């Protein structure tokens, strides 16, 4: 019997359902293959660091899904051709892909559309152009367009069998093209990042050059400032020199007797002038230090003597306020290498400050001691003054800063003293420590290393002279050369007071004319003079055999180190900075004239 139609229909329906189920399973398998490939591909994209490694690895992953034999990636260049960017040859016989490909109608179509399979590459114009030995090993190919951010590329998978690629490959290619396109985008982003880095480097370079130029301008400005300071020093000291010198002459009653009232007035003038000189010196010292133009004149110093000397200089100040000074130095014969002048200046600054800020009948004590085993020397000035709160201690060493403007008004000062102290100590390789509390006094400690400072090259030979008074004989003749009449008057008066004869010249040229007629025993000449300056004048004298050994004392208002060296190099026997301390001048003249007599 034939089966009835109803069971047949049921069978058919059941069969259809089973087929659908199987189709669904097949679909699932395909999707799993796709997702596995995608995951592997994403791993490659994540882990690869460069285009050179990304695409070969990605092609290796895609090979599992497409089952191609070889594959390559061609990147579209602006000139309208494709360049080989990466390839993967999975088989034993490696296929060497051409490096350059022309874009024809076929590739245009691929770029503008979807993946295309070629069942026979020999019929495709873009392929025909290549070497026959290459084409002999390629039957069919799959062409997949890749879209980057701005770049276009082509993924080509090949198989030696003609007609190998079909619907399944094309369907898969459409989905996985996204993965390969992403690799292209990643590469583009890397390139963009590289470009940005390069641009950034260029900008940094440009900025550096700008900064270098700015730095150079600053250096030039600093040099101008130094020159300005030097000139200002000259301009300020010259008249001040005359003021102080004349005042001293008058106060010594060289020019005639004085009334008590005149003496008091002269004393005020002298004090004010000296204060003004101190201010100028401080400013110049600070400028020199900050400009790095200070050389230390290091020599073995007995710290006991240094301390005593400094205290002697502030003794009067202390007595004025009935402040008791104390001093201890342990060990007694403690020595180290220091620039005596500068360190004494630092100590005086500290002691003066301590006295200034200590109420009357207070106590200021200087302690010098060696601290072992650190090989440090500590010079500490302790006072029973007003003290400084902790918040203000950090600002103490900033130039022109006063902790309290009210204090400035009450106690005076430039606000440069501690800054100078700090710089001087640091030049010696040391540091300044402060310990203070309001109302409980302060301790300023200079911590210096022992023998750690390299000796500098300052030539001390030129400074060796005897300060002993040799006495006067035959009233030696001294030629004074200075373009400022007030200075000529000052020195002339003083030298006469000392018992010398003088010749006066307002320029180097005039001096030479005088010397043609009469040779002096010594020449006292200014450096900063118009037309023929002091250097030139001295050089001319030294070139003349007759005047070669004539003692010459140079006077300068410039106190920069290079000026001093230049003066000595020009042939001067000695130099003095204006304003000249007349006592020192007397000693120098006596010494040089005595030496001349021996010669």
């Amino acid at each position, binding site marked *: 019997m034939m089966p009835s139609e109803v069971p047949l229909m049921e069978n*058919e329906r059941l*069969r259809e359902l*089973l087929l659908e*189920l199987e189709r669904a399973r097949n679909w699932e398998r395909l999707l799993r293959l796709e997702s596995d490939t995608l995951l592997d591909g994403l791993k490659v994209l994540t882990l690869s660091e460069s285009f050179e490694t990304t695409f070969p690895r990605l092609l290796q992953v895609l090979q599992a899904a497409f089952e191609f034999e070889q594959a390559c990636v061609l990147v579209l260049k602006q000139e309208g051709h494709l360049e080989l960017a990466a390839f993967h040859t999975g088989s034993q016989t490696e296929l060497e892909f051409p490096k350059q490909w022309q874009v024809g109608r076929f590739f245009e179509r691929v770029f503008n559309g979807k993946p295309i399979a070629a069942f026979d590459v020999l019929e495709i114009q873009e*392929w025909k152009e290549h070497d026959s030995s290459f084409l002999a090993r390629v039957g069919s190919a799959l062409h997949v367009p890749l879209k980057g951010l701005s770049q276009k590329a082509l993924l080509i998978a090949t198989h030696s069998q003609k007609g190998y690629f079909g619907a399944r490959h094309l369907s898969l290619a459409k989905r996985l093209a996204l993965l390969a396109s992403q690799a292209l985008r990643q590469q583009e982003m890397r390139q963009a990042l590289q470009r940005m880095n390069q641009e950034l480097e260029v900008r940094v370079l440009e900025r550096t050059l700008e900064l270098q130029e700015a730095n150079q301008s600053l250096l030039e400005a600093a040099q101008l400032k130094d020159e300005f300071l030097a000139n200002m020093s000259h301009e300020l000291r010259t008249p001040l020199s005359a003021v102080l010198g004349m005042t001293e002459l008058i106060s010594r009653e060289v020019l005639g007797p004085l009334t008590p009232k005149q003496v008091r007035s002269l004393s005020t003038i002298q004090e004010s002038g000296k204060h003004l000189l101190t201010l100028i010196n401080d400013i110049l010292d600070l400028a020199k230090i900050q400009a790095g133009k200070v050389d230390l004149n290091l020599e073995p110093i007995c710290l006991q003597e240094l301390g005593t000397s400094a205290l002697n200089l502030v003794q009067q100040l202390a007595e004025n306020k009935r402040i008791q000074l104390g001093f201890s130095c342990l060990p007694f014969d403690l020595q180290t290498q220091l620039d005596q002048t500068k360190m004494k200046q630092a100590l005086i600054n500290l002691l003066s400050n301590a006295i200034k800020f200590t109420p009357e009948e207070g106590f200021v004590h200087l302690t010098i001691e060696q601290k072992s085993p650190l090989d440090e020397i500590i010079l500490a000035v302790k006072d029973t003054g007003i003290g400084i709160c902790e918040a203000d201690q950090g600002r103490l060493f900033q130039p022109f800063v006063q902790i309290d403007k009210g204090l400035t008004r009450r106690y005076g000062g430039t606000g440069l003293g501690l800054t100078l102290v700090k710089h001087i100590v640091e030049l010696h390789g040391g540091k300044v420590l402060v310990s203070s509390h309001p109302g409980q006094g302060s301790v300023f400690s200079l911590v210096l290393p022992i023998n750690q400072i390299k000796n500098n090259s300052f030539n001390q030979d030129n400074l060796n002279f005897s300060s002993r008074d040799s006495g006067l004989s035959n009233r030696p003749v001294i030629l004074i050369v200075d373009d400022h009449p007030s200075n000529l008057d000052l020195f002339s008066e003083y030298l006469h007071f000392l018992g010398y004869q003088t010749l006066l010249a307002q320029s180097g040229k005039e001096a030479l004319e005088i010397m043609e007629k009469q040779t002096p025993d010594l020449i006292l000449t200014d450096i900063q003079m118009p037309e023929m300056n002091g250097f030139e004048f001295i050089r001319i004298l030294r070139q003349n055999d007759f005047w070669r050994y004539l003692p010459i004392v140079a006077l300068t208002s410039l106190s920069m180190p290079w000026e001093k060296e230049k003066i000595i190099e020009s042939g001067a026997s000695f130099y003095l900075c204006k304003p000249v301390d007349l006592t020192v001048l007397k000693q120098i003249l006596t010494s040089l004239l005595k030496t001349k007599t021996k010669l």
Partner: protein
Amino acid sequence: MKVSVSWTNQPLPDLGFDEAWKQLIQSFSDLPQLVFVFSTVGYDINQLMPALLELPPEVQVLGCTSCQGVMSHAGFLSAPTGGLGLLGFSDPEGAIGVGLADLTQSACDTARQALKQAILAADREGESPDLVFVSASPGIEEEIIQGIESLVGKNIPVIGGSAADNEVSGLWQIFSKSQVISEGVIIAVFYCSGKLLFAFHSGYDPSGEKAQITQAADRTLYQLDGKPAAEVYNHWTNGILDSVLAQQTGNILSQTTLFPLGRWVGQIGEIPYFQLSHPERVLAGGALRLFADMVEGEDVWLMRGTPESLIQRAGNVARAALETQEQLDVHRIRGALVIYCAGCMLTIQPRMEEVVLSLRQALGEVPFLGAFTFGEQGCFPGGENRHGNLMISVLVFYDAL
């Protein structure tokens, strides 16, 4: 992508074509690139040719004869004086080419020749098409598929139907715009901007009866399990061939439509699928002649179907085609081509409107055209291109986004 369908049953073929053509092009802003012409042998194709030749040069034609009529979304169309259906297709962003070759060489070479012509006409030399549509004279279909695959590979889907006449009397014809042939093949290649969805099925199940082919040559089956094939078949079908066997020879197409022989050609998972062969004649000595090749040593199954399954099958195949598209958007379905076995149609001819209805239910309100063929070609679910009998192929034109 644009698809339109028209038809006619005017008694005069040239007038009929003119009527259908005018109806067809109304739907196109430009001309269609390809026109499928399915005509019954009631029309003298040679009388159609002047009209075809007058078509603009950009219009290509793929024509073949269909058994007794055609079907479209409008219904089953059959007239004793003849009739035809047209399906116009246009895809300006894609390419289409048609090639025809007379059978003057091997069928395989003939197919290659026609395919090369088609690819050349599409201007896509070397480029794998999305799909190959084929219409061949009956009897050479396996070689035709072989020839196609030898050129573009086995991974390109092949779909089509063999030319037919009304009574298996050799009147079938294949024609292009300029040529009509009786023996040969016509091929169209598609390079589409959208997608072509397809399915290939039969409406038959294995009955459980099975035998080994012990003697066969081409499409003649001499013995099953060492016995005359007709006797074995008659036994399986409970004597439906008794009357013919009594006369020793005779046409058996109508008796065997619901009981074809099936060859196991593949399976999806554990579910086998069969290539059907339709016995058409009992030969002297108890041999059976079929519409598909038989291979000695293989097993054949007796398949069985019902009129109901043949009716519903068309819609099911269309549905299966649509299911191949992920996230189907019905608004992108532009139309369909249906290849329906002539034998099946003859069995359920009075109920063909139901077949049309099943297709409309599956495809929706889109135009479609169906031909009734003497052999069907399609791509099985496993991806193999096959020729079979009593099969249904549906090709759906699915537009790109």
